[in-house]
């Protein structure tokens, strides 16, 4: 067994183990499964006389290590938390994330000694607080409910929620100055959008360019959930992967390969910086970068390893993302879809390789394969979605990269002159009108609504996809052999 194959297997087994632990499968179930898998590998190895399978049997041990890692990591996190629940207390905390502002403010605060741990505070929209503010609270901290929401928060280390406590500002600028400046910059841009565009469009543009979700109206949020487009504004990494790929193809039409690569990297960096380099966005950017690398390098084996290693390191840093970070799952699976499914589909439809206007075909198949790959995850994570979401996403995603680029230009103009931005904003508004129209239109169609998915169906769905890819690959080898 080659060393990179071994590394690949270790990473996969480790991730499987951590995933199993996060599903609360029970330790003995995991051990039993590992023993069974190892036995199977040994058995096959014995009959086929292939040492590879003996290796695999040995590496199965890493499943157990993965599961252990998950449990230990979780325990250590909980141990560091000291929060008094369900009792009225006074405590101080420092705002560690850029506050989410909408009809209410949501602050993530790191509580200060004698307490410790992060808390989500929901407060009145004004007075507005900033990243780095030290605030004294008087109120009751509650545990998050239901469990899925609690897990979602726990992934970012948040364990309690306090609603409308009594608050007072103690001090400002207790965070990193660099991040504070980045957040200010981001807010300025969003304000620029709000000044020039209707709120819905401004919110959507802020969403796709900066992952800002606070300003959406309830109706629009629902429409997005129902049309399966929420992920667009979640800056989940999935959209970054797709956007980056599409941008790459699109820019590649105007520019040389190297400049395209550099420019796209610059955009990813811009993303990370503007969103204040929050963990979720960094994850997304890494995934996006790997997607880009995949097309650059074009070697399937390296791509396979790059994807799995990125996932492995992210799981090391925070194993909870495997199960509770939809963004992580989406970007991961979408990437696999783009890399493996897209060539298979293109072959199936016998798509010729030559380029067409604005690389529309390439875009289309990239989006289609990513969408097909993530469909079950989209449906089970972002609430009810209908199968038309496939169509919605393809219709929208093909113009998103252009809209984003125009959005960045608009942001730049906003710093120069409000009037200039207003005129250009009208132009960007045309695209945004189209996108919001599609979202609302398909959000209204409630035919074939799927609320939740059966596990069996999900497994079956992916099985079919894998068989499809496999069959397509086999096709290649047969043709090659004939030649």
């Amino acid at each position, binding site marked *: 067994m080659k060393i990179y194959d071994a590394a690949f297997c270790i990473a996969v087994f480790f991730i499987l183990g951590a995933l199993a632990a996060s599903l609360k499968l029970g330790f003995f179930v995991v051990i039993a499964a590992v023993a069974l898998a190892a036995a199977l590998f040994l058995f096959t190895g014995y009959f086929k006389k292939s040492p590879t399978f003996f290796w695999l049997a040995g590496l199965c041990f890493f499943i157990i290590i993965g599961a252990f890692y998950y449990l230990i990591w979780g325990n250590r996190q909980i141990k560091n938390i000291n929060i008094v629940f369900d009792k009225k207390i006074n405590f101080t905390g420092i705002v560690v994330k850029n506050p989410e502002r909408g009809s209410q403010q949501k602050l993530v605060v790191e509580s200060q000694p004698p307490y410790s741990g992060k808390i989500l505070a929901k407060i009145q929209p*004004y007075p507005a607080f900033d990243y780095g503010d030290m605030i004294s609270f008087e109120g009751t901290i509650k545990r998050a409910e239901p469990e899925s929401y609690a897990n979602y928060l726990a992934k970012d280390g948040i364990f309690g929620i306090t609603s409308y406590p009594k608050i007072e500002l103690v001090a400002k600028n207790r965070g990193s100055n660099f991040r504070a400046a980045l957040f200010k910059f981001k807010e300025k841009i969003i304000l620029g959008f709000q000044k020039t565009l209707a709120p819905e469009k401004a919110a959507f543009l802020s969403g796709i360019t900066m992952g800002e979700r606070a300003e959406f109206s309830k109706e629009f949020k629902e429409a997005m959930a129902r049309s399966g487009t929420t992920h667009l504004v979640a800056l989940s990494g999935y959209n970054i992967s797709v956007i980056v790929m599409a941008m790459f193809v699109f820019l590649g039409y105007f520019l040389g390969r190297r400049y395209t690569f550099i420019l796209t990297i610059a955009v990813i960096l811009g993303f990370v910086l503007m969103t204040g380099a929050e963990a979720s966005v960094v994850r997304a950017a890494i995934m996006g970068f790997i997607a880009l690398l995949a097309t650059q390098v074009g070697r399937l084996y390296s791509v396979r390893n790059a994807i799995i290693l990125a996932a492995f390191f992210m799981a090391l840093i925070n194993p909870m993302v495997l199960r509770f970070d939809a963004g992580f799952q989406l970007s991961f699976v979408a990437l696999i879809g783009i890399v493996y499914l897209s060539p298979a589909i293109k072959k199936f439809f016998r798509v010729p390789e030559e380029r067409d206007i604005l690389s529309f075909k390439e875009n289309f198949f990239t989006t289609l394969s990513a969408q097909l790959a993530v469909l079950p995850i989209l449906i089970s994570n972002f609430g009810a979605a209908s199968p038309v979401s496939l169509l919605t996403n393809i219709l929208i995603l093909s113009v998103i990269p252009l809209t984003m680029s125009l959005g960045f230009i608009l942001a730049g103009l906003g710093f120069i002159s409000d009037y200039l931005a207003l005129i250009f904003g*009208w132009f960007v508004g045309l695209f945004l009108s189209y996108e919001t129209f599609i979202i609302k239109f398909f959000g209204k169609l409630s035919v074939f609504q799927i609320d939740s998915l059966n596990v069996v169906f999900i497994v079956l769905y992916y099985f079919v996809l894998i068989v499809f890819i496999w069959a397509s690959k086999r096709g290649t080898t047969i043709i090659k052999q004939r030649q």
Partner: protein
Amino acid sequence: MKNRNWVILLVLFLIIFDGFVWSEILFRGPNKNTEIYFLDVGQGDSALIILPGNTKILIDGGPNNKIINELTAILRPTDRYIDLMILSHSQTDHFSGLIDVLKRYRVGGFIFNGRRGNAGSWLELTKILREKGVPILILASKDKIRHLDNQFNFLWPEKDFIQSRELNETALVPLLQSQGVKVLFTGDIDTKIEKYLLKKHGLGLDVDILKVAHHGSKYSSGENFLQAVSPKVAVIPVGKNSYGHPTKEVLSRLALVGAQIFRTDKDGTVKLIINSQEINIFKKK
């Protein structure tokens, strides 16, 4: 080849933009009627008045940024100017939304009763007013604003009440006269203030349209007051709340004086178009 594509895109953009500008010029003349919108901003107050000639006056802004959605649904996307902003009194369910408006719109002037709020958000409001350099005017009873044939008469607050312990008693109460129709905006005043107003203005209070005081609280909109006001149309700005607003007492008192009742929680934003002959009422929901 590459250059030509850009040129085509640019020309296309200019042609579409030109069409847009001309359509704005040709088809969107200034309004001839007076339009009044009672905005659905949840539990709070907010009303937009558009006088003939597109002069916009915003009275209160509701408790949060919900007002922005309502405003942009009414105003043209390029119209980011509000002539006058009037705050009835310094409570958050009346002024918080104004902060969001000030962030996104240019505002010609800010009018309030001179009484500062004690909520932390009040500082936020004064800060943004200062930053944007909006002229601030303090008005009280007997003050008037005139624009062409339209007039605002301020009936309240009297001098002695500006420092009242109860912020609701300090509210500005403008009476709008436009195209022969009278509209009374009552802020959050209670029956005590209503009695003062009755004593002073008597039948002068008779109006066509009433913004019902304090979201339909039973301590406002007293029987005698409503009889004097005798509105044809009564609009209650109200949202989801734990106070029981609008109270059934007020609803029945309004019904008793024969007013047609609209409420923003059930009807959404209520739009009234007024010309010298008639009042047309539209509701969103």
